[in-house]
C-alpha cells in the first residue's frame, strides 16, 4: 500500500476530493498547513512597520491506497489541483506497511 500525501492550494480541496471520489477512493484525511517554497509570501504593513507573511496557507491531503491505485491517485490529484501557477504544490508518496480499520480490526487493503 502507499500513502499519498499532497500539499495543495486550499481552494482546490473540493476539486481534489471530487476527483478522488470519482476514481473510487473512499477516505481522505485533510489538514491545514503553511507552506514555504518558490511561491513567495507577501509583505504587509501594520501601523507603518513592514512584515513579511512568509508562509502561505496550504492544505495537506493524505490518502492511503493500494499499490495498484497509487498511480491513478497521483494523476487524479495532479489533474484536479493544477492551476499552472507557481505554488500549486507537491505530491509525496511513501510506502505503507500496514493499515488497520479501528472499528472492525480489518487490516491491509480491506481497511482503506
Amino acid at each position, binding site marked *: 500500500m502507499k500513502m499519498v500525501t499532497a500539499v495543495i492550494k486550499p481552494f482546490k480541496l473540493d476539486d481534489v476530493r471530487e476527483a478522488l471520489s470519482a476514481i473510487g477512493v473512499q477516505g481522505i484525511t485533510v489538514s491545514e498547513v503553511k507552506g514555504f517554497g518558490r511561491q513567495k509570501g507577501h509583505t504587509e*504593513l*501594520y*501601523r*507603518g512597520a513592514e*512584515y513579511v507573511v512568509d508562509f502561505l496557507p496550504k492544505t495537506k491531503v493524505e490518502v492511503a491506497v493500494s499499490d495498484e491505485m497509487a498511480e491513478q491517485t497521483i494523476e487524479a490529484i495532479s489533474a484536479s489541483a493544477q492551476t499552472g501557477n507557481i505554488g500549486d504544490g507537491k505530491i509525496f508518496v511513501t510506502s505503507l506497511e500496514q493499515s488497520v480499520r479501528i472499528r472492525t480490526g480489518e487490516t491491509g487493503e480491506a481497511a482503506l
Partner: protein
Amino acid sequence: MEATAELSYALNTFYFLVCGALVMWMAAGFAMLEAGLVRSKNTTEILTKNIVLFAIACTMYMVVGYDIMYGGGILLDGLAADGVAGAEEPAGYAPSADFYFQVVFVATAMSIVSGAVAERMKLFAFLIFAVVMTAFIYPTEGGWTWGSKDVFGLYNLGDLGFVDFAGSGIVHMAGAAAGLAGVLAIGARKGKYGSDGSVNAMPGANMPLATLGTFILWMGWFGFNGGSVLATATVSDANAVAVVFLNTNAAASGGCIVALLVAKAMFGKADLTMALNGCLAGLVAITAGPDTPSPLMATIIGGLGGALVVGSIVTLDKLKIDDPVGAISVHGTVGLLGLLAVPFTNSDASISGQLIGGATIFGWVFVTSFVTFKLIGFVMPVRVSDEEEEMGSDIAECGLEAYPEFKA
C-alpha cells in the same frame, strides 16, 4: 428653594450622572481597544488590568484623590453626613454627582497607561502604580488646573491663560506622560526592534474588538466633553452642551477621515488601526476646547489630530519607544496639539499659558511616574521575565488564555 431652582438643580444633577455613566463606559472602550490591539497571548492580562485599574481609580479617588484635587475630605467625609450636599446654600447640583463625574476622569487617565505598557508590564506592579497615580499624581496636577490651586505655591495656571476645557492635557496628556515614563522604565517588547534598526510589526489579534472599543470611546466622549460644561439647565448652558456634542462628533469624524487618507498615502493600504487611532486623535484634539470652534473648525482640528497621530506613531517607533496601542501618540502628542489649538478659537487662552500648563502637567506626571516605576522596581519585578513574555502574560500572570479553544 423655589420650584424652578429645584428643577434646575435636578436637571443639572441628572445631566452629570448621564454624562458620568458615558465616561464610565469609556473604560470598556479602552479595555476592548487594548484587547484588540495586543497579541492574543496577552489579552486576558490586559483585560484584567483594565477592569481592576478602574476599580482602583474609583476607590483611591474616593479615599484621598478628590480631597487632594478639590477638597471635600478624606473618604469624602466633607460631603454631608448622609453622603449628599449640605443644604445651607443652594448648590447647582448634587455633590455626589460631581464626585461621580470626576472619578471616571481619573480612570480614563489611568486606562491610557495600560495600553502603553501592554504585553510586558507585570500585573501587580501595574496595579500598584495605579494606586499611586490615581491617589496622588493625577489629583495633584488636577488640583493645579481644574482645582485652581497654585503649582507648588509658585504660579497659578489659570492666571497665565491656561485653558483646558475637558482635559486634552489634564487627563489625556497626563495619562500619556505616565505611559511614556512606563515605557522608558521597562523597555520595548522583546523582538519589537531588530538590532539592525528594523521595526517588527506585531499585529493586534482582534480587529472587531479594537473597532468596538473605538466606537465605545467615541460615544463615551460625548459625556466626557459634554459633561464638562458642568451645567445644562439654562439656555446658554444647554446651547453650550449642544455645541460641544456637535463639535466633539465633528472632530472625531475629521480625525478618522484624515488618518485613513494619510495612512493610505504613506503605506498604500487603508490601515484600519490608523483610522481608529485617527478617531481618537480627533477626539483628544478637540477636548481642550470643544465649546468655541465652529463645526468646520472642529472638523479641521480633529483632522490635524488625525494626521499628527499617524506621524507620531511612526516616529515613536523610529525612536524605539514601543507603544503597542498608540496611546502615547493619541493622548500625548495629540493632547499637546489640542492644548495649542485652543487660543485660535478662544481668547481666554494664550499660547504661553498653554505651553506652561502643558509643560507643568507633563513634567510633573512624567517625573513622578518614572520615579514611582523605579521605586516599585525595588520591591517587585515590574517587567515579566523573558520566558513569561514568550509564553504570554495570560498564562504567566492570570493562568488563563483569552481564547483557550482557538489555539491550534
